[in-house]
């Protein structure tokens, strides 16, 4: 009996027991649907992240932070780290990282978190922090208008993300915003560049003379030189690194030893010509403006190193870790991004595996029942010239068809659900202003793999019943009532 005839006969036999076949197939469908969605989700998400990262060069980047525990990826937005056991990200360390084999460069990153608002044309918007990094091409942004921060830029130059521009009414005409001046308003405790510290007032009786008067916010003027795409990472203002370092300065009048000596000397000089009795000269106070920098104390927020080729990223990451800092290449970044997808896929995979196991039992049951019902028919087939092998193949194919049909319907259901899931995810991502559409794909290999697997499961489940059918004695089978 030829293969086509075997398949056609098996199909006809399945049609004879419509309800039973349908129920058996249904179990396979549940399993196949779960597995399809699981695979589509994981491969789609991996694909999406991989594409995104390879597009912007992230696969060649290594994120370096002072924290050695990188269970949470630090993208440099958390400011300087205060951590005793951590290694400070210093210029010297940057040089060491740059010397690691395959590393072609290092970008130091620093945030200035002391600013709370950015104002253009009277419209004040919330500002999380100002980002600065070496403009050496390692980190880049998608420009929509103007230019990115360059290595020669000094103070007073920024780029803003498009979402700011949109809110200021420049949607679709970002070019018009380039060259415009904005105000960056600090929080009251800001003491960095542009802040003019007040000379300390003479101490009042009963008052701590270290206490500073209530400060006013500092306003820095900046010119917008470019508008970058806020799609990946919105609400961000970027400035030259040197300026951001200056924003991390702390200007404070302090009484140094020299001041103290000078004060004492002046006091003594005032008392020298004083007659007998207590000498209370006017409190002459000398102070010096001392400028310290957070960067010197705490180091940079993060470094980003670049390797010559993505294949060397893992080795370079390991080498950088040996310097005592935390380092992660995009692979681990992708992994961390995939975590939620992995959890969903484990659940779906579990459901799929269990339902496929149950489905296999269902197939065995269905086929054993079919053999009991069709014992006489098997006898007739044997009398008409069917070999044992033909009977075995017939029932194996019949079981395989249950798996195949379940797989096909399951993949179709899975396809329908991925469309729904894509709509939901698209909406979600658009809400986070990430440009992406139809992350979950259903590649051809996946369809083939799922249908192939369910077919094989069906055939394997059908093996035992098929052997039983083939072993039937034709004489007894014909006599079977």
């Amino acid at each position: 009996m030829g293969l086509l005839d075997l398949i056609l006969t098996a199909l006809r036999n399945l049609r004879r027991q419509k309800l039973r076949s349908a129920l058996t197939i249904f179990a396979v469908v549940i399993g196949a649907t779960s597995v399809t969605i699981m695979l589509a989700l994981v491969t789609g998400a991996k694909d999406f992240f991989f594409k995104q990262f390879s597009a912007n060069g992230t696969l060649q980047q290594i994120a370096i932070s002072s924290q050695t525990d990188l269970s949470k990826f630090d993208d440099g937005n958390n400011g300087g780290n205060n951590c005793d056991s951590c290694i400070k990200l210093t210029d010297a360390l940057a040089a060491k990282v740059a010397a690691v084999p395959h590393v072609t460069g290092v970008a130091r990153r620093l945030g200035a978190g002391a600013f709370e608002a950015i104002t253009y044309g009277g419209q004040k918007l919330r500002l999380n922090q100002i980002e600065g990094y070496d403009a050496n091409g390692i980190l880049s942004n998608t420009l929509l208008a103007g230019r990115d921060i360059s290595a020669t830029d000094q103070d007073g130059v920024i780029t803003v993300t498009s979402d700011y521009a949109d809110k200021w009414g420049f949607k679709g005409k970002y070019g018009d915003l380039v060259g415009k001046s904005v105000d960056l308003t600090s929080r009251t405790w800001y003491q960095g560049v542009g802040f003019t510290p007040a000379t300390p007032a003479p101490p009042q009786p009963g008052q701590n003379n270290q206490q500073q008067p209530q400060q006013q916010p500092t306003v820095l003027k900046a010119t917008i030189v470019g508008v970058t795409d806020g799609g990946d990472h919105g609400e961000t203002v970027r400035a030259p690194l040197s300026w951001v370092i200056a924003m991390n300065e702390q200007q404070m009048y302090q009484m140094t030893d020299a001041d103290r000596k000078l004060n004492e000397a002046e006091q003594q000089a005032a008392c020298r010509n004083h007659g007998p009795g207590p000498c209370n000269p006017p409190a002459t106070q000398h102070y010096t403006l001392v400028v310290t920098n957070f960067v010197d104390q705490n180091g940079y927020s993060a470094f980003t190193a670049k390797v010559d080729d993505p294949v060397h990223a893992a080795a370079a990451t390991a080498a950088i870790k040996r310097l005592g800092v935390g380092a992660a290449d995009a692979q681990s970044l992708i992994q961390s991004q995939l975590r939620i997808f992995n959890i969903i896929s484990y659940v779906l995979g579990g459901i799929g595996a269990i339902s496929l196991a149950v489905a296999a039992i269902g197939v065995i049951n269905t086929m054993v029942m079919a053999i009991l019902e069709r014992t006489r028919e098997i006898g007739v087939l044997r009398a008409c010239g069917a070999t044992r092998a033909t009977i075995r193949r017939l029932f194996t194919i019949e079981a395989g068809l249950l798996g195949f049909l379940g797989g096909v319907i399951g993949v179709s259901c899975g396809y329908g659900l991925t469309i729904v899931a894509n709509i939901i995810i698209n909406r979600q991502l658009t809400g986070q202003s990430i440009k992406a559409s139809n992350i979950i794909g259903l590649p051809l290999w996946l369809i083939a793999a799922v249908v192939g697997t369910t077919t094989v499961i069906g055939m394997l489940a059908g093996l035992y019943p098929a052997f039983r059918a083939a072993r039937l004695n034709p004489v007894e089978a014909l006599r079977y009532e």
Partner: protein
Amino acid sequence: MPTAVELHNVTRVYKMGDEILKALDGINLAIKPGEFVAITGPSGSGKSTLANIIGGLDVANSGSVMVDGLDLAAAHDKELSRYRNHTIGFVFQSFNLQPTATALENVMMPLVLGRLPRGQRRARAEACLKAVGLGERMKHKPTELSGGQRQRVAIARALANQPSIIIADEPTGNLDSERGKEIMALLHDLNKQGITLIIITHDQEIAKMADRILYIKDGRMTERRG
């Protein structure tokens, strides 16, 4: 050349628990091509076993069953299946038709098993159905046919691969006497066209139509001319 069947000292033993049942006990038999042989005997005498061994459905424990130079007693499953498909046509008392398939599909079944090219199957099956007088009922399912018509479909199925031997086990057992006579006439007709006919029957009227009557009792055979 039409097939001759030769049995030498054929024994078939069944084990029923500890008991050993000799269904056939040293049978020697030669059937000439085109012969009409009736096998009779009481129930459980071994007449069906004899027919099944000749038809290649059952295998002898000892002795030889030679058909066309093939020893069925020593043949493999593949050879026996091919033999059943090409040389033998079985007709059963209870018709044994596929209830969900049409008459035509039932007749095509041995052709499918015998891998007759797709294009020729239908024509062959139609010819067989016409030969048994069912040219008008090819699309009917067995449930839509009378008993006599069903047995005609079964005979058409037996004829499909143009066998040289037809083995009919009580072919009229489930039919009224009128239908039984018609079926016997049909089988007799086929025999006259050269097909060897082996019929198992209780019915003396039918046995009398045969060239030879083989009487089996307790696994042993006696013979008389019809």
